[in-house]
């Protein structure tokens, strides 16, 4: 019995460490994002103006966190109190729960290597829209409700291309375990199926609601979207959950398409895997930050049209193309190694060129049709 008890305690400690990991990383990611955004907007970002923020204001986020802990928690009149409080809890819980299967290293640096790991990530993320809809509904605020509805229709819509893109590494690996997917990437999948990586990245940006898909919290239109009414740490929970989600999608993109923890010397020093994974995730995260700083915001009809008229068809065509091209090569005897990868890459490039061709034809047609009308007519 002591053996089992010890095991439970060790598992719990590991779970706590793993749940703490994204929180700690996010503290510095927020600092990094603010610095990068500041530089891109010709500002300095957080600086060492106060006493407590440390060198380069590294601990600015910690200071912010401590400050926000002492702020009053206001529940507006007419709000549905239970749901109102449950929403921020659910955000953080769902954001952290995904980390159960994320492999930080070859062995040991993972809570549990589920054999349906990738599906677990997708299934747990299915809970995420509810926190927003709960927040929006319970606030009794029109802006909050509009924001929640925008968020939900955007997030559930972009789940489809995300899952279709996620199926491609699964299909190439023949396993849903994230460890197996990493081990299969002798060549990172981004170089094998770049179109799938592209659509996964775009879908992830939409899932986490970064610009240009930020309309759930479009501050010039609907105050702050679904968390308009939140204050103090409950607002902080939404902010935290959002950044944890950013980190999570960066890490999952790295796992699925950039080879996860793989890198030089990982075989000798297993914890180096976490460093490589975080470096790759930081790269992806900075792509998100650059989108954030550089892109204008889309309208809801544009967001939905882009999903259903471009991303979903692209995902379907890409999945069918990869599956058939791979099987055809296998029946031709090109089943293994770099030949298979090169063949898939060629198939992807051909498909990509075809898509660009179709898009340019469609665009030319639309331009021709538009020239008969006055410009500006037809915009909603």
């Amino acid at each position, binding site marked *: 019995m002591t053996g089992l008890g010890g095991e439970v305690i060790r598992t719990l400690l590991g*779970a706590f460490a793993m749940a703490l990991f994204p929180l700690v990383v996010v503290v510095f990611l927020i600092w990094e994002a603010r610095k990068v955004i500041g530089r891109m907007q010709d500002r300095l970002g957080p600086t060492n103006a106060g006493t407590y923020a440390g060198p380069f204001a590294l601990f600015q986020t910690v200071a912010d966190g401590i400050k926000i802990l002492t702020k009053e928690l206001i529940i*507006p009149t007419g709000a549905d109190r239970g749901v109102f409080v449950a929403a921020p809890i659910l955000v953080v819980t769902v954001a952290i729960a995904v980390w159960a299967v994320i492999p930080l290293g070859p062995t040991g640096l993972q809570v549990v290597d589920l054999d349906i790991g990738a599906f677990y990530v997708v299934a747990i993320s299915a809970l995420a829209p509810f926190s927003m809809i709960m927040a929006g509904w319970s606030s009794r*605020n029109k802006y909050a409700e509009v924001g929640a509805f925008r968020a939900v229709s955007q997030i559930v819509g972009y789940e489809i291309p995300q899952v279709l893109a996620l199926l491609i590494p699964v299909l190439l690996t023949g396993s849903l375990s994230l460890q197996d997917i990493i081990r299969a990437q002798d060549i990172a999948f981004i170089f094998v199926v770049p179109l799938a990586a592209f659509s996964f990245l775009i879908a992830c940006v939409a899932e986490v609601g970064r610009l240009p898909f930020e309309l759930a919290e479009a501050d010039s239109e609907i105050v702050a979207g679904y968390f308009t009414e939140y204050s103090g740490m409950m607002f902080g*929970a939404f902010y935290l959950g959002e950044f944890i989600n950013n980190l999570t999608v960066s890490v999952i993109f790295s796992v699925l398409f950039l080879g996860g923890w793989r890198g030089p010397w990982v075989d000798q020093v297993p914890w180096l895997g976490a460093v490589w994974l975080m470096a790759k995730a930081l790269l992806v995260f900075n792509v998100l930050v650059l989108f954030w700083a550089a892109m204008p915001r889309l309208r809801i009809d544009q967001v*939905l049209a882009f999903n259903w008229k471009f991303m979903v068809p692209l995902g379907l065509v890409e999945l069918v193309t990869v599956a058939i091209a791979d099987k055809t090569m296998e029946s031709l005897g090109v089943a293994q190694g770099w030949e298979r990868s090169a063949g898939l890459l060629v198939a992807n490039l051909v498909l990509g060129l075809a898509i660009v061709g179709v898009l340019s034809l469609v665009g030319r047609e639309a331009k021709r049709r538009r020239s008969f009308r006055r410009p500006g007519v037809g915009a909603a």
Partner: protein
Amino acid sequence: MIHPFAVVGLFLVVSLIFGVAPIALAWLLSPKKLNPRKQQVYESGNPTFGETWIEFKPQYYLFGLAFLAFDVEAAFLFPWALAYNQLALYAVFEAAVFLGLLGVSLVFVWRKGWLEWM
């Protein structure tokens, strides 16, 4: 040896603790001086008017419907993708038919204009 599913369950409990803890801590630490003006709903400084829980466009629902169809389809594709390595070429074509039917119906509703935002 703890079963992996039990570990997942423990992790879910731990993440729930991580969700509750900051808000519970803030509730303990924060001042509680509420008054009706502070608790007003914030709608850009204007007094709120009309019904708060507004009625939404059915368009949202249409996109939800389209999502549900593709959601079920994706769920069916997971076991197929897992078995992909053992499948023959014709089995892949069967899945392509499966995907193609939905793709065709997506194109159909698109052409009919039911996916337009009005």
